[in-house]
């Protein structure tokens, strides 16, 4: 308990930030017309590919002969990059049909 | 005060109906009803109830202090009426210019309902409006009945029927009602008139207004139309000709107070109309808007049926009587105060309609 409170006091700003981000996440979506559900899901999915940054950092800091880490890390990069590029591209294709007329 | 209600001669309406009398019991008066006066309008003598006594015409002419009717009593009748009796009817002094002299000679006092000024205040007594409204409605029904074609558009297994085109000439009270009724039935309606306000009024009913530029303005004519320049009338006839040849139905209501109705549809135009087309000319009694119109007759010329009738209200006697009766009663309530005639000549309405001063 003490530890948790300690953590709370020490990371107060982080917690504010987390909570506000969550609220912001809710807010930002809360009035989306249902026609946009799928593109929005797809766009959010692309953003979740941000995890690739972790993989990049991992590889950059791994020993050049640590093939295990390098291999798995590269796998992570491949997976993450697929998610990011594919996600944004697919969202863009879906949204093409919203092009304004005239 | 004894109020006599005459039976109309050539008209199925009656000037006062039982309903009106029942609703206005506070008007202290005794009513003498000519036998069967309301019969043809659907108001049997019995319906008038006990407060009204039924008599023959002579008795009424002789005894009443005030006599009401739609059409004025004829000369023979007048001879029987005692002096100073008050007559309320449609004397139409604009057309029968000597009528007031004749009445004055007999020392009768007469109020002509068609002379009530057409102010907002007087609308409750404005029989011209209420009757014109009936006429406009009936004119369309009559046209629809005579037209060998449908009014509305119909896409059916037996072919597509295009909607009838209806042209309304003159957008006064009758014209507007005709527009509304024709639109209801699904026709394509266009109308025109020379008054400036008419455009807005026509469009306020969702119909199309046909503009002919250069109409003379009518400000100050109290809502009535004024004479138009010769050149304008020509262009107008040109336009009417164009429209008429394309129309299935023409409802003509254009009138100018106290003058002959303007001729808007010439012979040649009629000859070019589609066979079977119908013209209803409500201005027939003052000469008609259509050159071939014959008053009180239904004729066929060049395959076009031309109905000349300015008294279509008569063809819907029940409601027409009821409206007339309400108008009349509103007038009587102005005229009669506590059972006494109140000849208040300061009152615009009374003064305007009093034709035997």
């Amino acid at each position, binding site marked *: 308990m003490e530890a948790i409170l300690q953590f709370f006091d020490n990371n107060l700003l982080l917690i504010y930030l987390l909570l506000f981000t969550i609220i912001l996440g809710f807010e930002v979506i809360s009035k989306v017309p249902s026609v946009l559900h799928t593109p929005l*899901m797809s766009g959010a999915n692309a953003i979740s*590919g941000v995890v690739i940054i972790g993989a990049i950092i991992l590889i*950059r*800091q791994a020993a050049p002969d640590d093939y295990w880490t*390098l291999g798995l890390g*590269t796998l992570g990069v491949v997976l993450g990059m697929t998610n990011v590029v594919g996600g*944004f591209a697919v969202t863009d294709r879906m949204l093409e049909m919203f092009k304004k007329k005239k | 005060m004894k109020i006599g209600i005459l039976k109309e001669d050539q008209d199925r309406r009656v000037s006062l109906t039982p309903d009106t009398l029942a609703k206005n019991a506070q008007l202290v008066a005794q009513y003498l009803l000519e036998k069967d006066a309301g019969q043809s309008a659907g108001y049997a003598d019995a319906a008038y109830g006990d407060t009204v006594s039924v008599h023959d015409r002579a008795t009424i002419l002789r005894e009443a202090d005030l006599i009401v009717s739609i059409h004025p009593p004829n000369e023979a009748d007048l001879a029987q009426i005692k002096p100073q009796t008050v007559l309320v009817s449609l004397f139409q002094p604009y057309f029968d210019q000597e009528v007031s002299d004749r009445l004055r000679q007999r020392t009768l006092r007469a109020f002509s309902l068609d002379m009530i000024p057409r102010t907002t205040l007087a609308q409750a007594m404005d029989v011209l409006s209420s009757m014109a409204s009936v006429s406009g409605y009936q004119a369309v029904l009559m046209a629809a009945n005579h037209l060998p074609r449908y009014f509305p558009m119909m896409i059916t297994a037996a072919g597509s029927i295009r909607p009838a085109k209806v042209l309304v000439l003159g957008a006064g009270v009758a014209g507007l009602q005709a527009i509304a009724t024709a639109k209801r039935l699904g026709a394509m309606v266009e109308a025109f008139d020379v008054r400036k306000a008419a455009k807005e009024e026509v469009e306020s009913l969702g119909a199309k207004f046909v503009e002919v530029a250069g109409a003379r303005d009518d400000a100050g004519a109290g809502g009535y139309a004024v004479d138009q320049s010769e050149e304008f009338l020509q262009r107008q006839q040109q336009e009417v000709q164009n429209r008429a040849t394309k129309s299935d139905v023409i409802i003509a209501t254009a009138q100018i107070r106290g003058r002959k109705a303007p001729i808007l549809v010439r012979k040649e135009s009629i000859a070019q109309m589609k066979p079977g087309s119908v013209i209803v000319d409500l201005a027939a009694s003052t000469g008609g808007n259509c050159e071939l119109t014959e008053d009180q007759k239904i004729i066929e010329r060049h395959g076009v049926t031309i109905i000349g009738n300015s008294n279509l209200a008569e063809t819907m006697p029940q409601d027409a009587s009821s409206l007339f009766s309400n108008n009349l009663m509103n007038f009587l309530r102005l005229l009669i105060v506590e059972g006494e005639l109140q000849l208040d000549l300061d009152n615009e309405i009374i003064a305007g309609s009093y034709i035997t001063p």
Partner: protein
Amino acid sequence: MLTSFLNLSYLLGALTFVIGLRRLSSPDTARRGNGLAALGMGIAIIATMVYPFTDAPNNYLWIVVGMLLGGAIGWWSAQKVQMTAMPQMVSIFNGLGGACAVVLAMLELLSFYAGERSLDTGALFIVLLALLIGAVSFTGSLLAFGKLQGLVKDKHVYLPGHQWINIFFLIATIGLVTFLLVQGSSIGSIGAIVLMILTLVYGFSFVAPIGGADMPVVISLLNSFTGLSAAAAGLIYGNQIMLVGGILVGASGTILTVLMCQAMNRSLLNVLIGGFGGGGGAPSKGAVGDQVAKEVTRNDAAIQLFYSNSVMFVPGYGLAVAQAQKAIKELDDLLSANGVEVRYAIHPVAGRMPGHMNVLLAEADVPYAQLLDLDEANDLFANTDIVVVVGANDVVNPAALDDPGSPIYGMPVLQVWEAKNVIVLKRSMSTGYAGIQNQLFFHDKNRMLFGDAKKSLQALIGEVKSL
């Protein structure tokens, strides 16, 4: 200085994510929103690449190869995928994101258990969390993909009492995580591997009982899971953009899931639990015998209508029954205001009396000029983007032309299938006056929008207004 640059890039990236998502939720700005978020992601990735970590070996070759490979796969599949297969695609991408988190977490755990890195309990918990959420999201997404793609039939993966199996998995996972937390590094990497396998299986099992039709909701849910695992990974690396981006996706994904359920008139619990019991969802409304008519959602229909150039309404008896004449006119007005050319094709025997449609449309004030009769309409269908059949049936039945055995063979009909798309509004698959089935409903170009015509039109009006 350089750190500030990195921080600034991350801050910028995080802001683009927020603003991008915001813009994604309005049709006018959605596309630019997506681009913005992509831009932010690019900035963040580049910044991560160039920031000079002290003493880092960098291994750029590995990274670049991985990125090129992943980028190519992602790009290529995004371009190839059919418009109708979008949800599957999203699902598989999402699964990959989850897998990435799994890889990161496993590497972390392995080095932890190998004693190469130390983690306090809190940090260990977060790594385990990233692992487990990522794993569930990974296999769950794969199965969702399989179901949507038609590779996996609901019944193939649904076991009797599946809800109990899932509850068991849940408890087992919690138990194992607690156990690992208590044990610390002493237990060795086997613990992490067991947890990974357990949660991978769990993800699969989690999705198994949920009906195919509910997959979009599940994908959205799994998507928010992936976001959370990314956020957890962000905490591990002390990286704000991963944290913020992940949390954002987690939150918005959750709310989006709820919204999607609402749009289906169901609760999230109902989707998840209902699936547990139901095992496969209700049969489609559009099924008649072997044939199944494809449905369209109101929002898809609304988009199609709104962004088309020409729309032809084909009213029938159902329009009259639903008394939907004013609604059709309102939709007409909305579309016309957006520059769509709207007309009405009136079949001579539509309705139940000659001129039935004329009466109704006149009541709604549709100008006569917009009404086309059979021949005029048939000439125009080929140039019409969308035909909306509102409660008509017999009058648009192709059997009249191509089925000599049909009782209506020889009757002229409105050849709506000549248009680019057809949407049929009716309540069910039942027949019309003539009592015969209509092959139009199963036509490739046709989509059904089931429901009372007035309600459907009003729903479309609402959707179009929200565009």
